[in-house]
């Protein structure tokens, strides 16, 4: 845990200093689970005036291994509509998988990637087989083998 907490300590210090617009830190108690809010800044009608809450779960081998990032579903923080985001908050993004991850990435860069993923989206829909996936999935997001087919996002 030592390595991960040191790295996260550095990131937290930087986040406390400054964050890009549209990203705010909600809680960062300890170095295992952080909550951040993101907003889409341009006038995308799907996400206009909405704030989404992200949950980061860090493993002891972060940043060698990717963190587990999901959207939370609460009363005022819905899961955004996106063809790669399941309604239970699980995100299908290669950056967050074992293959696409790089230890150079950090919390801030993940948030910005998700921001831009939402900004560029025009389809107000869930992924194919969302209901079935949500009903049947008991695995943790990192163990799911997504097939990254869509290179447009």
């Amino acid at each position, binding site marked *: 845990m030592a*390595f991960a907490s*040191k*790295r996260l300590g*550095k*990131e937290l210090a*930087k986040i406390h200093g400054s964050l890009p617009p549209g990203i705010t830190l909600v809680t960062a108690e300890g170095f295992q689970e952080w909550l951040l809010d993101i907003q889409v800044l341009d006038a995308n009608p799907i996400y206009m005036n909405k704030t989404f809450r992200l949950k980061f779960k860090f493993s002891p*081998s972060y*940043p*060698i*291994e990717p963190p587990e990032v999901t959207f939370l579903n609460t009363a005022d923080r819905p899961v955004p509509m996106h063809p790669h985001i399941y309604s239970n908050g699980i995100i299908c993004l290669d950056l967050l998988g*074992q*293959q696409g991850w*790089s*230890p*150079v990435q*950090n919390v801030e860069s993940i948030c910005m990637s998700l921001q831009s993923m939402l900004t560029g989206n025009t389809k107000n829909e869930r992924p194919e087989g969302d209901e079935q996936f949500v009903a049947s999935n008991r695995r943790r997001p990192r163990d799911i083998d997504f097939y990254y087919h869509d290179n447009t996002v």
Partner: protein
Amino acid sequence: MDTPSQPDSLLSRGSHLSDPSQAYTFHTDLDNLSGGTTETALGASISSIHKISTLNLRHTVDLRAITYGGTVDENLVCPICRCPFVDPVLTDCDHVFCRACIDDALSHGELCPVDRLPLSQATIARAPKMVFNQLDALKAKCPCCGNIFARAILENHLEKYCLEAMVRCPGSLSEQGCTQVVKRRLSTQQCLHYPAQCPDCYETLEQIEMESHRQTLCRDRTKLCDYCEVEILRCEEIEHKAECPDVLQICKWAQYGCQHESKRRDLYLHADDCHFKSIGPMAEMLKVEISSLRDDVRNLTETNQLQERRIKFLESGQRASDRPMDLMDLSLASMPEAASTDSLDSGHDYLLSLLETQQSRLSHLSAELSDFQGKNTMMLFNETLPIKNELAELRSTQQVTCMHVRWLMRFRMQENQRRFGVSPGLASTGGPDGGNGFGSDITLSRRLSDSSRDVITKL
């Protein structure tokens, strides 16, 4: 106690202190220390200074946990751990990482974390020396004392100099064989690991913890000040009393007779009304004046004594040099005194100057002596030269006379021959050495002395 042979015990015996100081570890494993430096084994038997130095413990600084002074150049920060590089390596795609970081990353996939190009362990090389130099020069905060040092010397600083760093207890070198560690600033005293009683709560604890105990932990550490009723630490009671606003204090002119006494905070009210407020400063001034005058008097007395001593010395010197040369002596001896009476403060200076005068006089004398010698030689030469000449003249005159005598002799002999008909050959054979004409002449002249007298009379 761990057995020292287990390498794992190294870290487990080193202590991690509370949060910020996780940045360093010290190794209390004595065998390891002596194995590394052999100082421990020697130091215990040599000198006490050496003993102190062997209290040092080896410190390992976690360069990822220390705080850096100022902002670190982004180019010197590892993209994986976000810390200034530790043992940096260069990939063949020109990216720099900490060695440990890239090793970890490559164990999960052989791609460069930055550009995702294939990357293998074999193509990683040590970063250029320049990068190391820049990293060594980074300003790092000591995790113990908080001072800023170059990163490269931090471990050395902790091991040898930092007052807040841990060292072995001085008791470890005495018979007690204390195995604890203490901060370096406490290591100059004796071993403080003995039980003592807290004077506040009567709890028994180790002396070494007493200070922090009395300041932060003791349940009876605070009390209300007897005067101002503010809560204070018992161990700082004396300091507080010196500035407590409710402590009774006497007027600042009390030594000149003011009887007033009031709380410290009210004293300023009295200051305006005090009857002594005009006399006080004057008295103060006079006091200063008097003390300075006293100093002056003391100085003058000293100078006076010194001068008296010098006069005595001079007088005795004069008596001793009561000789025919007296006059010259006096004139020379008085020279240093006349020239530099003011600068000669002490008897030593005076004696020295006297010595110098004597020396110059001596050299003067020797110069004169050699001069005199030269003159003498000259005179002697002048005198002897005419004598020599005369001598030579006399010698030549004598020679001439000799010649004359000889000539006369011969003449005389011939005269005799003629007169008495004696052949000169007979006369010469009659002498013991016939070859020597001169010798035969003498014998002849002797024999014929009567006759030659006749010749002279005839002549």
